[in-house]
């Protein structure tokens, strides 16, 4: 079976990833894309692209009919689903096959058998794989039945969407009082993300690790595993750090897991790439593992296995889809060294991982490591899709070196325009518990300090001073020259989240500049510009000497943002306007407003309602996450300004509240 032209029914980095292998194998590429993605790099890199009208996932990347039609019109002969979207949708796989295209994925029946987690668990039990204690939850269950079932499972527990994946439709519950709301929220999210509100319960195994086994099967009955990946460090039930080999996994546990994974895979006549996920616990008696679920697709974190084994998993998928046998026998598959991957997101870990949308002005990841990314400098990050910017992968001879190299690469990367989790990732990779391999799934709950930037005061000052200097053009006479010593020139910068503001005062003199940050002590710096004039080039190098120590900085100045990288730290700054712009803006918004752009999914109040402080007014969905807009104080709803289904910008006032009239109900 020949494959000449692959359509990737996906977007962003995974589409680029599939294209890369396709091109290497001499296969042409087709992208489908939504309207907002028209300028995205994966579209430009495709040989052929087809626009799917609209922007929501349902209109575009989840639209089976349009995608099949696009494949037909573009002359594709095979479809790769990527991950997420339709990748685990058996109906899509069936439609692809029915339309006569080669489906680069497992057989629809295999997908279906694992699609619903409740059913997958039954299959695992039949294969005699231990399961995490839990319970099913009927859609008709009453509140008291829900609470009773939860009590049986025991706390803490997780509410999970049966059709779920990627942490969507998942809620953790610490006590009975949270149960009802968590279940209804998980159901809503599950319905919205997967079209199926079924949820089930699972005991939360404290201190456990998330370890998964990569498997492959071919149409000739061969099944192999490609070792494990540990993905314990998660936020909001989504993996952000993945590595292999799993640092604390005993060899015998690992072997048992490989064997469990391959036998489960064999039991469903699996063909293609798959991942069997386990939780691993350890106590004095040793390690135990429990089946979680099986993902019938290529995982986001597949590069970890690729780096570790030196294999191209997308190539394997394509070969298997062509009907070939697995390229290697189990005994010929080896692993080398240690690999760590981190997921770089446009989100603010310090503010509940609030996603950030807008223009990514500067994005250059250090070329020393592998980067799988769907974005580049100038990319727009929209509210419609996942805010992942890139996967950054280090492969070294040992774990400690891999962690150091990866942290260093992140530190040497230039990023500006959006808040990212970069600093948090660096903090994780360099913290003692991580280095020691002590990484349970609740790692970030145990280390809240890793959510914020660990930048020291001296580096902060140096970067701010460099940012101010980089904003200063170079002319025919020494910059900022004064024959009469003058008061400092003021530059104001804000952190990307606009939460902190710094004022840098520069006083230029004959042999340098005296700089003061906020009310700190002034320090004298001398400046050497290494390359093109700061005023004419957006990218420049600067050597800054203070007290005899010189730092060499790389600076990008684009679109009102400054990115600074000097090998010891990386920062980005929003350049605040020199003069107040009185044209208005967000500052004029008063009242409860949306934290992010998104779509209103629930309006929980009506005009005339009395609300109390903290009460939810409106729920919106953005990037498949629910965000609640709550009342700040007790108030009366005067007017509701949004409706369900409405797409709203960030900082949109949703409800007009007025002060309650006292004693209205007093008798």
């Amino acid at each position, binding site marked *: 079976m020949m494959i000449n032209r692959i359509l990737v029914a996906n977007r962003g980095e995974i589409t680029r990833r599939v294209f890369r292998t396709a091109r290497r194998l001499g296969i042409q590429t087709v992208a489908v894309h939504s309207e907002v993605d028209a300028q995205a790099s994966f579209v430009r890199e495709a040989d052929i692209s087809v626009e799917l009208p609209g922007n929501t996932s349902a209109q575009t990347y989840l639209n089976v009919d349009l995608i099949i039609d696009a494949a037909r019109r573009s002359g594709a002969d095979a479809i790769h689903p990527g991950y997420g979207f339709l990748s685990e949708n058996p109906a899509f796989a069936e439609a692809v096959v029915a339309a006569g295209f080669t489906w680069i994925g497992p057989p629809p029946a295999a997908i279906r058998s694992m699609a619903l987690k409740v059913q997958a668990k039954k299959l695992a039990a039949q294969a005699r794989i231990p399961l995490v204690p839990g319970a099913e939850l009927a859609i008709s269950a009453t509140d008291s039945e829900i609470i009773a079932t939860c009590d049986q499972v025991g706390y803490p527990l997780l509410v999970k969407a049966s059709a779920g994946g990627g942490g969507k439709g998942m809620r953790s519950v610490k006590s009975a009082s949270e149960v009802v709301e968590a279940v209804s929220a998980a159901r809503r999210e599950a319905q919205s993300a997967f079209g199926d509100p079924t949820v089930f319960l699972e005991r939360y195994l404290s201190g456990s690790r998330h370890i998964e086994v990569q498997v492959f099967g071919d149409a000739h009955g061969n099944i192999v595993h490609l070792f494990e990946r540990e993905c314990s460090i998660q936020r909001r039930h989504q993996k952000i750090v993945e590595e292999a080999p799993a640092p604390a996994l005993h060899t015998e546990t690992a072997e048992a897991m490989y064997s469990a994974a391959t036998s489960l895979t064999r039991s469903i006549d699996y063909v293609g790439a798959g991942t069997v996920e386990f939780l691993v616990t350890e106590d004095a008696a040793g390690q135990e593992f429990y089946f979680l679920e099986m993902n019938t697709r290529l995982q986001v974190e597949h590069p970890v296995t690729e780096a570790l084994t030196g294999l191209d998993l997308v190539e394997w998928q394509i070969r298997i889809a062509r009907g070939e046998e697995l390229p290697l026998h189990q005994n010929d598959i080896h692993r080398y060294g240690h690999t760590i991957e981190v997921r770089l997101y446009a989100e603010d870990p310090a503010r509940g991982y609030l996603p950030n949308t807008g223009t990514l002005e500067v994005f250059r990841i250090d070329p020393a490591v592998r980067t799988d990314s769907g974005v580049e400098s100038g990319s727009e990050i929209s509210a419609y899709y996942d805010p992942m910017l890139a996967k950054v992968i280090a492969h070294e001879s040992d774990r400690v070196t891999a962690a150091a190299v990866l942290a260093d690469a992140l530190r040497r990367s230039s990023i500006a325009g959006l808040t990212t989790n970069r600093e948090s990732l660096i903090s994780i990779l360099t913290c003692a518990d991580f280095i020691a391999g002590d990484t349970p799934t609740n790692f970030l709950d145990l280390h809240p300090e890793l959510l914020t930037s660990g930048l020291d005061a001296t580096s902060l000052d140096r970067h701010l001073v460099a940012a101010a200097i980089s904003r200063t053009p170079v002319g025919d*006479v020494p910059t*900022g*020259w004064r*024959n009469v*010593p*003058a008061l400092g020139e003021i530059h104001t910068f804000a952190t990307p989240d606009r939460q902190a503001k710094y004022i840098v005062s520069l006083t230029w003199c004959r042999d340098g500049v005296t700089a003061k940050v906020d009310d700190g002590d002034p320090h004298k710096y001398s400046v050497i510009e290494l390359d093109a004039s700061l005023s004419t080039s957006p990218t420049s190098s600067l050597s800054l000497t203070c007290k005899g120590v010189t730092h060499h900085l790389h600076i990008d100045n684009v679109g009102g943002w400054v990115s600074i990288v000097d090998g010891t730290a990386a920062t980005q700054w929003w350049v605040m306007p020199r003069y107040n712009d*009185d044209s208005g803006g967000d500052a004029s918004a008063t009242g409860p407003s949306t934290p992010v752009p998104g779509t209103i999914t629930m309006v929980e109040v009506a005009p005339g309602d009395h609300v109390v402080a903290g009460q939810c007014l409106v729920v919106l969905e953005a990037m498949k996450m629910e965000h609640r807009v709550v009342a700040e104080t007790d108030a009366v709803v005067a007017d509701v300004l949004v409706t369900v289904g409405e797409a709203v910008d960030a900082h949109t006032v949703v409800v007009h509240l007025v002060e309650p009239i006292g004693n209205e109900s007093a008798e």
Partner: protein
Amino acid sequence: MAPVLRSRIDPADEVFTANRDLMLAALAEIDELTARVVGGGGSNDPAKNARSVARHRGRGKMLPRERINGLLDVGSPFLELSPLAGWGTDDPLGAGVVSGIGRVHGRDVMVVANDPTVKGGAQGPSAVAKGLRAMDIARENRLPLVNLTESGGADLPKQAEIFVPGGASFRNLTQLSAAGIPTVTLVFGSSTAGGAYVPGMSDYVVLVKDAARVYLGGPPLVKMAIDEDADEESLGGAAMHARTSGLADYLANDEADALRIGRDIVAHLHFSHPNQNRPLASSAPIYPIEELLGIASADVRHPFEAREVLARILDGSEFEQFKPLYGSTLVTGWGQVGGYPIGVLANNGILFSEESHKGAQFIQLCNRMNVPILFAQNITGFMVGTQYEQGGIIKDGAKLINAVSNSTVAHLTLMMGASYGAGNYGMSGRAYDPRFVFTWPNHRIAVMGPKQLAGVLTIVARQKSEAAGVVFDEAAFAPLRDAFQAQVESQSTALYATGRLWDDGIIDPRDTRTALTMALSAVHNTPVQGTDSFGVFRM
């Protein structure tokens, strides 16, 4: 490429180190005076100054140099002019007004800012002179003028000294406008009585809301004159002028907003650089500029080599000498400063007939080439004595003064040492309208050296008594002579000169190149156009 000057300076030499130490001491004194000016307040009482600055800031207002920073481009240079105007007079040091050249949207502009912490911005004679000088510079170099106004008007106790000459301020404003040189006034506070004509005569007027007050007569005067009870806002508030009288073209929300508007106005002027003689690529001198501190003689009676100075001012220390073997006490030739080609006349001693001939010829050549001229003065005068009088030194000196007077290319004058006698004139002293005059702290200026002047006085006195048949009492005359010499000395210092605006400011020798570059940039806002029309050269 012109030849590179060779320096023979030994920085370890005793004379060099002594000069440098004295120069640094003089600069320290100037820095101290300048710091007082920058600090604001204007009095000799630091506590009182601090109070007036605090009161000003308490109203949410900026100091004049902060306003200037806010107006100029980020990283713009600012050449402040006559910062120590008023020194040695009973006007406040600095005259309560800041003037200088900076860049707004890349254009050279003249900025004049009142310092309201100094007598409420009231103008004494030095302030009037400084303001008029700024307008002269704006006119000669076609620089847009931006006034940052907040002034109580005339310093009333000195009204007699300023009323008549001060009137020219308003005439000059409208004449600048007539000449097509834009005038912009941002009013931050009071601008009343005569001061109301500053915005009144300007092309563009910006008033700061709730702060600017512009009226001919304030409430007390109105009460006295026509018995009307008027409040400040209806008489001269910013909102009133923006909505009712139409005096304000723009209403600013606050000071920063006014500066933003001021920048926008300059941006839309499209007031272009004539684009001729844009600077060429330039490189710094190959010798350390710091060495200028030790090169210039602290005592102007000791000569120093002018080429050592040029080697630290000219681009790449390159200098093409003209007639090096003829009239060698006047160094002439061509070089560049900051990429601008210039002709240079620099004194290396007394002016003789040859030097006068050479200088006059060189000035004519610069006029043919349309090149500005730098006069580097260290001159004790034209040579005297029978031989030289008979040789026609008057006729020859007249040729030089004729050439200087009628030359139409821009002149820049650097006072790097002595400036005595007619040498001051022949080398384009203040009265010969150079575009800019900058002074080093070691500079001395007088009709002749104090000692010589005292000696001349003694001789004249002796001759007078001898003519009367009286024996001249040398001992009795000595204190008189010494007192006279001391007076001349005190009136010939750089500070005395700068206090009276005989120059455009004392500069640190290390800033010379930058100040000259700024001046040349300003000069080139108008075409450098020489002449072939001179007075009759007496042959």
